[in-house]
């Protein structure tokens, strides 16, 4: 008897078995080509900006934040060119013309990080083919306040200047990937999908804490602009520093800009930080430093007197007084307080060029200041081999070399704190995206440039300047101020220009235990007055008075009144 092994059911089962097997293989192990094609067809990966880290002032006020903003793009696959005219008046005309023609590709920006009003108008039109995604926009709540120190970013939130550039690595948060799926009608579905191809990025960048006091910054900027307009000046700068630890409390530059307004950024003069990026001849504000060098090296006695005529011949040139007549016999203190050029020139001749050059290098001139801001100039200090003829005397009166306002402020701070040169810094702490502190300020004592005795002597001489000398315009009742005026000519192509001056005033208070060093520079006043005592000293006084008012009524962070 023959057994029938084969059954029609076997064929059916075999068929289904094959189908199930293929189904399983297609579902569980799809062909990579099919997978990538479906991804391309149904998913769009759009890089979008995440929260850039914030920048705070010393009291924890946010000076730079990233806020949500809407961006719009067009998918040409769903776009009708005839709809372009609806966007007239909302987006630029060249873009409308582009959209009026057939567009290649699958993505074109319509409006990036649009203002609320523009976003609402585009949304209201509800045009097919226009899609919206959320990005982050960099905003500066203070407007132009502290703009040069903060800097600004590009459209993709990369820092381009100032603190934004210097600490971009910590502030920047890599763009996230937003996955957009499309249904059959072209509607976008926003789905945040964790994709193994892309590493997840943190929600925010790090944080930078500055040493700047935004209240003092405000009064400084306001008074600087006031002085600029009053005297018709071309540029100006003010630096306020704590002489004990080098913290920069305020740094203002004019002309200024608002980083929220992109058009402001087109003018290079506006975005130049004059405090660190502009060099100028310091003039008589340099005299205390030279006298300090002379006293340290024993070239000048503290009680020595000098005959100061109106004009003296030095090598191949002449040094003349700023006024119309000579001073006669002056003590070393009076040379400072009355700002005698001929007296100072005689002191300058006594110091060997080599010694003076190296002393000035030790003071920080002709080299980087070390501040954590990009675009800092080193200044110009010729090597001693080139100091021939009248050059040493010129340098003694603050001409023939170029410094930045910050360098001079740091040098005056050394006089204020007893002879210690400290590194100026504007950042107190930096934290990365994970909350770890990656940088903490340290009071960096660079070197001793003066002995305490010489520093105290210079202190008293500068107090005399305000009490009875050229700096009386800065006197404030009840406050002992030590300061020096400066009036320097502007040099161009090796020659001093007639009628162009830089007026400056540098000082500290209270002279017994200095808390603040303030340096005001007004570049090229054009309304008649140009002496430092007439132009910069009044601005110094107004800033000091405003700072006193802030201290009078302000509370520190523990709630105590600060006197």
């Amino acid at each position, binding site marked *: *008897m023959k*057994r*029938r092994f084969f*059954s029609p059911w076997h064929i059916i*089962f075999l068929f*289904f078995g094959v189908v*199930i097997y293929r*189904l*399983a293989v297609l*579902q569980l192990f799809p062909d990579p080509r099919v997978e990538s094609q479906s991804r391309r067809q149904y998913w769009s990966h759009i890089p979008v900006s995440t*929260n850039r880290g*914030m920048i705070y002032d010393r009291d924890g*006020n*946010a*000076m730079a*934040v*990233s*806020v*949500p903003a809407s961006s719009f793009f067009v998918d040409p696959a769903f776009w009708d060119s005839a709809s372009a005219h609806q966007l007239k008046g909302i987006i630029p005309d060249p873009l409308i013309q582009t959209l009026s023609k057939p567009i290649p590709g699958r993505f074109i920006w319509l409006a990036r990080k649009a203002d609320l009003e523009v976003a609402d108008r585009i949304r209201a039109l509800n045009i097919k083919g226009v899609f919206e995604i959320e990005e982050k926009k960099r*905003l500066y*709540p*203070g*407007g132009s*306040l502290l703009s040069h120190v903060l800097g600004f970013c590009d459209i993709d939130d990369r820092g381009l200047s100032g603190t934004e550039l210097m600490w971009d690595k910590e502030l920047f948060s890599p763009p996230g990937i937003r996955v957009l799926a499309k249904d059959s009608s072209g509607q976008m579905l926003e*789905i*945040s*999908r964790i994709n193994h191809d892309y590493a997840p990025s943190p*929600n925010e960048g790090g944080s930078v804490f500055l040493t700047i006091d*935004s*209240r003092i*910054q*405000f*009064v400084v900027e*306001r008074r600087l602009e006031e002085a600029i307009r009053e005297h018709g000046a071309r540029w100006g700068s003010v630096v306020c520093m*704590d002489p*004990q*630890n080098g913290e920069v409390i305020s740094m203002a530059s004019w002309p200024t800009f608002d980083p929220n307004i992109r058009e402001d950024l087109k003018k290079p003069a506006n975005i130049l930080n004059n405090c660190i990026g502009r060099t100028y001849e310091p003039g008589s504000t340099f005299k205390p430093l030279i006298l300090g060098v002379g006293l340290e090296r024993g070239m000048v006695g503290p009680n020595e007197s000098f005959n100061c005529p109106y004009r003296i011949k030095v090598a191949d040139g002449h040094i003349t007084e700023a006024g119309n007549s000579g001073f006669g016999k002056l003590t070393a203190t009076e040379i400072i307080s009355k700002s005698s050029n001929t007296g100072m020139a005689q002191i300058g001749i006594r110091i060997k060029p080599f010694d003076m050059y190296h002393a000035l290098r030790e003071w920080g001139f002709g080299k980087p200041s070390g501040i954590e801001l990009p675009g800092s100039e080193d200044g110009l200090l010729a090597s001693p081999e080139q100091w021939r003829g009248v050059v040493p005397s010129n340098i003694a009166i603050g001409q023939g070399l170029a410094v930045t306002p910050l360098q001079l402020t740091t040098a005056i701070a050394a006089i204020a704190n007893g002879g210690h040169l400290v590194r100026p810094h504007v950042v107190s702490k930096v934290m990365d995206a994970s909350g770890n502190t990656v940088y903490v300020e340290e009071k960096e004592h660079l070197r001793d440039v003066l002995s305490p005795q010489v520093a105290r002597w210079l202190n008293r001489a500068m107090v005399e300047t305000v009490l009875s000398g050229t700096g009386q315009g800065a006197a404030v*009742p*009840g406050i002992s101020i030590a300061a020096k005026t400066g009036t320097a000519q502007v040099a161009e192509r090796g020659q001093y220009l007639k009628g162009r001056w830089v007026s400056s005033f540098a000082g500290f208070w*209270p002279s*017994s*235990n200095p*808390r603040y060093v303030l340096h005001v520079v007004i570049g090229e006043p054009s309304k008649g007055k140009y002496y430092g005592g007439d132009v910069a000293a009044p601005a110094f006084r107004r800033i000091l*008075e405003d700072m006193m*008012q802030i201290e*009078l*009524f302000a509370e520190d962070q523990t709630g105590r009144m600060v*006197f």
Partner: protein
Amino acid sequence: MRYGLEVPERSVSGSIRKICPYVVAITLCVFLLFTGLGVLRLYSFRLECRLNSVNRQIESYNNHRVLLKHELSTLLSPVRLFGFSKEELGMTYASNVRVLKVDGGYFANAAGQQEEVPLTKTGPEEEGWFYFFLERAMAGE
């Protein structure tokens, strides 16, 4: 009785009965597995939607927090405060301030002992001078 074509019914039905339950069971298992797979896929979609919803909520709260920080900074901006106090409130600088210089620190603590008051945040007092403003002057007398 047909010659050559007779198939022992008993053996066929027996063998079918032996094979079919296994096949049915395997088919059922495979079907259940695929059904389970489908259910898992659907459940993962549901979880993904929930995750997206939670992520959106987190993002929304983060954005709100940032907006509040921005608003706070704008409100505390010295530019705004100065403008508001001057233009809206008519405030001016205090002009009736009197300055009194007192030698040394004379603040007493609760036990009545003399307490050394530091003059400045940055360094120790050197000459014993500090300034403070009379309360009467601040009160506007």
